[in-house]
């Protein structure tokens, strides 16, 4: 796990309030979180605890009512609409329960799509897509259409698409929700491997068995982060390292 690098995703005191007055609903209350390259973080909590809100804010699909969201060090709130769209395309990938593949495109075409939208030449995009598919173990299915693939295979395509090119952050919302237990496990094992190879992932799930694949598990309740497990958090390690560095200078 890389801990000396800057976080790829940082939430600083993020709050999200829907509605006003009596109808005011605090979806998130002052949540802070940092995710580093190579780190796999799971977010757990009951329905309505703010898990999905956290993910949409992290991906720039929604804006916080308070606090800041930084992706690759850039504060999303300070970006223009066009810049934000660029961050969403280039830095962040999404994986959902229902795969969201385009049925008329093959696996490799689905995977290369975000790169083509980004203006990368088709040949380069295809090569990158083939690499990404190989990394999730389904290079041989490149020319299949989604309808001719199993759920687990489609979800692997979605992960490949989420991590193509220089994209290093996967935001996954219950990605195994539609899969049986051993297929779901294989999908999580792929995410785990991608993180061990340097990607970062945030997984939202209410299933402890899935969250357990992560390095760190954070618990949300009523929009608040109430607890955290895992090996020593990257923040703690960084703080310790910073303390040592300071001590060395003195």
């Amino acid at each position, binding site marked *: 796990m890389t801990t000396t690098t800057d976080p790829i995703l940082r939430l600083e005191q993020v709050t999200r309030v*829907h*509605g006003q007055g*009596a*109808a*005011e*609903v*605090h*979806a998130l209350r002052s949540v802070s979180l940092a995710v580093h390259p190579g780190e796999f973080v799971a977010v*757990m909590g*009951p*329905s*309505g*605890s*703010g898990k*999905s*809100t956290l993910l949409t804010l992290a991906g720039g699909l929604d804006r916080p009512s308070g606090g800041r969201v930084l992706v690759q060090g850039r504060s999303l709130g300070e970006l223009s609409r066009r810049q934000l769209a660029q961050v969403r395309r280039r830095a962040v990938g999404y994986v959902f329960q229902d795969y969201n593949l385009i049925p008329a495109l093959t696996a490799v075409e689905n995977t290369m799509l975000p790169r083509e939208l980004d203006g990368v030449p088709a040949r380069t995009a295809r090569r990158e897509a083939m690499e990404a598919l190989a990394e999730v173990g389904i290079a041989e299915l490149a020319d299949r259409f989604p309808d001719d693939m199993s759920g687990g295979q489609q979800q692997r395509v979605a992960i490949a698409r989420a991590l193509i090119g220089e994209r290093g952050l996967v935001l996954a919302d219950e990605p195994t929700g539609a899969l049986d237990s051993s297929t779901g496990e294989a999908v999580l*094992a792929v995410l*785990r491997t991608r993180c061990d190879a340097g990607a970062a992932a945030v997984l939202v799930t*209410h*299933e*402890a*068995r899935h*969250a*357990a*694949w*992560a390095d760190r*598990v954070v*618990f949300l309740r*009523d*929009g608040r982060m*109430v*607890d955290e*497990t*895992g090996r020593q958090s990257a923040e703690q390690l960084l703080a310790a390292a910073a303390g040592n560095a300071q001590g060395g200078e003195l």
Partner: protein
Amino acid sequence: MSIKHGLLALLDQGPRYGYQLRTEFEARTGATWPLNVGQVYTTLGRLERDGLVLPDGEDEEGHLFYRVTDRGRAELRNWFETPVPRTNPPRDELAIKLAMAVTVPGVDVQAVVQGQRRHSIQALQDYTRLKARALAAVAEPAAGGTELAWLLVLDQLIFQTEAEVRWLDHCETRLAQHRPQPVPAQEPAPGTGEQEPAPTTRGRGKQRQGER
């Protein structure tokens, strides 16, 4: 846990000596339930007394071998064919702790639940790390039954721990329903948190009702 039947199952594959039985038992279960050689010999003694195994000579190094008898094989088959009884659930410290916690004043039950959940998920993370390794081992061409056996045991530990966590989640919901927390009354109900409220729709709906 049935050491007796575990040893019979191993001996069913051919004569073995005590230390060997212990090693093979632990390889299949990842030393989740460690056996000491003393336990193995005590159990072998009982099996011999009951006519389920017989001594089968010594090798040149002085290892005393045992083999399974026909009666032992019948006992083993019967074990495989009979479900593990669930009539007397094993005493569960956590269930007892929570049962006590809800009745003893001054105990922060929610903190007990969260503390346990944190601990159990950490255990789950550890098991899952072991499982990732075991999955890779099973995928090796040279992998045999021992790797698979260990993976199944790990899966069991994982599902059991997951069940505990799910039960804890459920306890939390129950506690919230039956023992209202001292929070301000205007606090929104859980479950509405992620939806955009649309107060205008209700007004319109009422109007429409009125028109009819």
